[in-house]
């Protein structure tokens, strides 16, 4: 950090750090009103654009409400020297946040957990046999965090992989769901995530109807899980349509 003074003084954000709202009791949550006025089953409008970063082999920018993400794909390129020979390709994922991604200024560091979850969500979809001995790097940067960050990163990464021409079985679409009291809300924003009692995220390949990753947090009964999975899978297949059309736009655009 570079400042005029040698010693950096400690600072604080003038906005209140703890949300002043009283902790939400179970009663008030019976009728959860979504802060952005959406219905429980309504996703935010999704926007994808490929080719956001020219320096990369492929890239994509995704915007879901306030969640904004850029993913760059590099390679296939030479694996690190220390890596042993492998007759299938390697996938290397990294997720970082900008310092201004969150309302309170963060450290802008890498997110280890998201990096490993991104890897797990994608590895089943990529045909690793097509690039033996080499590595494909998938790097994501969250410009602004507005909730459901990980699903947006995963969907955006699969569009970026397609843009880079990496062979995949299918696009990977990801959708998450929050459980607030008795309500299930799809594609939650940050505020909803901070109150959630449980969450569920599905990443899937809609054309093959296969789940590549599923995580559940919090207490759920079996019927609840089944309902949430069905809703998420349905949303995933719709999301995949949007992702596919964003890829087609580029191709038809370049032909003109």
């Amino acid at each position, binding site marked *: *950090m*570079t*400042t*005029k*003074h040698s*010693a*950096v*003084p*400690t*600072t*604080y*954000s*003038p*906005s*209140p750090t703890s949300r002043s709202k009283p902790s939400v009791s179970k009663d008030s949550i019976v009728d959860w009103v979504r802060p952005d006025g959406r219905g429980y089953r309504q996703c935010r409008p999704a926007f994808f654009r490929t080719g*956001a*970063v*020219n*320096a*990369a082999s492929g*890239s994509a920018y995704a915007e879901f409400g*306030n969640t904004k993400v*850029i*993913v*760059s794909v*590099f390679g296939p*390129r030479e694996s690190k020297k220390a890596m042993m020979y492998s007759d299938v390709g390697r996938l290397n994922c*990294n997720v*970082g946040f*900008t*310092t*201004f*991604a*969150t*309302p309170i*200024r963060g450290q*802008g560091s*890498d997110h280890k957990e998201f990096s490993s979850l991104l890897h797990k969500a994608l590895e089943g979809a990529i045909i690793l046999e097509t690039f033996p001995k080499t590595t494909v*790097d998938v*790097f*994501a*940067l969250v*410009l*602004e*965090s507005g909730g459901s960050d990980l699903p947006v990163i995963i969907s955006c990464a699969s569009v970026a992989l397609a843009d880079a021409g990496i062979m995949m079985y299918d696009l990977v679409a990801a959708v998450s769901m929050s459980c607030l009291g008795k309500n299930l809300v799809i594609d939650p924003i940050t505020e909803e995530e901070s109150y959630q009692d449980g969450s569920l995220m599905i990443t899937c390949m809609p054309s093959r109807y296969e789940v590549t990753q599923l995580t559940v947090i919090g207490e759920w009964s079996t019927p609840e899980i089944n309902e949430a999975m069905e809703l998420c899978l349905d949303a995933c297949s719709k999301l995949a349509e949007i992702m596919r059309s964003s890829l087609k736009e580029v191709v038809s655009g370049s032909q003109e």
Partner: protein
Amino acid sequence: MFCGKEDKLETMELPNDSGDLGSEMEVDAFRRLFPLRFYERHLAESIRPDARPLSRARDTTVALGAVASANGSALAKIGSTTMLAAIKMEVMTPSVELPDEGCIAIEFHMPPICSPLVRPGRPAEVAPVVSKQLSDTILSSGMINLKELSLVSGKAAWMAYLDIYCLDADGALFDAALLSAVAAFSHLQIPVVSLNDDGKIVMLSEEQDDGNLDKGAVNKEKRKIALSSIPFSLTCVLHKNYILADPTAEEESIMETVVTVVLDSSNQLVSLYKPGGPVLARTSVLQDCVALTRQRIKELQNILDEAISGMEVD
């Protein structure tokens, strides 16, 4: 044997010049194998591979307010080099020596997404260099009067955290970073705050604004920062007698001598960097660079003014 191959390629290049554009692959191969000779041939014709004259900078755009979670932000693009700058305002206790001054902390980041040369965990070498140049330039230019960042003398002042992220690296990183930084400052909206009973500065929420604004707010009149003598820069690459303005990453890697000139809006020299390189610049060359910068800052000033007026219309 290697020489022979080179000759062969050159002879293959010749028919290209005389109108036969059939073998594009050979041009590509020549560019990769002998990048310097490839460039020198272009330079001899006073043209660059991307069809620019030597002194022309790439298309430049500025968009303000790209980040909603920041107090001020801007996205600047020069060619494909893209920079996202955002300012977050936090409160600090000013130092004893300078009780009436705020502070600006500037950091330049090169995340792994921006270039194939940057890998996670292995930060780019140039990032801290650009970071230092930026903060030296911005603080020494006198663009911002740090006294304006004071809130309560000796008690509280603003600390402006300016973070610049390189989203796409294609040469002239400093120019784009400085442009995005300056634009972010011109977009900066300082939040209205008040001093609470504990001696802490708190944000006034929108609902409270009407009633409490008069007695509560400590900075009612200082919502915008006045920017005087804004610095702009132009980076040039020197090769033999040629000066190439606003180089791409490829040009920077092939011809290693770089000169960056920073002038402020009244054409005063703020800083000048020539970090080594194989070409020793004559003073006349440096004067040429300054002259190019002088032309360039007029363009940049217009681009910034347009972005600002575009925001005001909205």
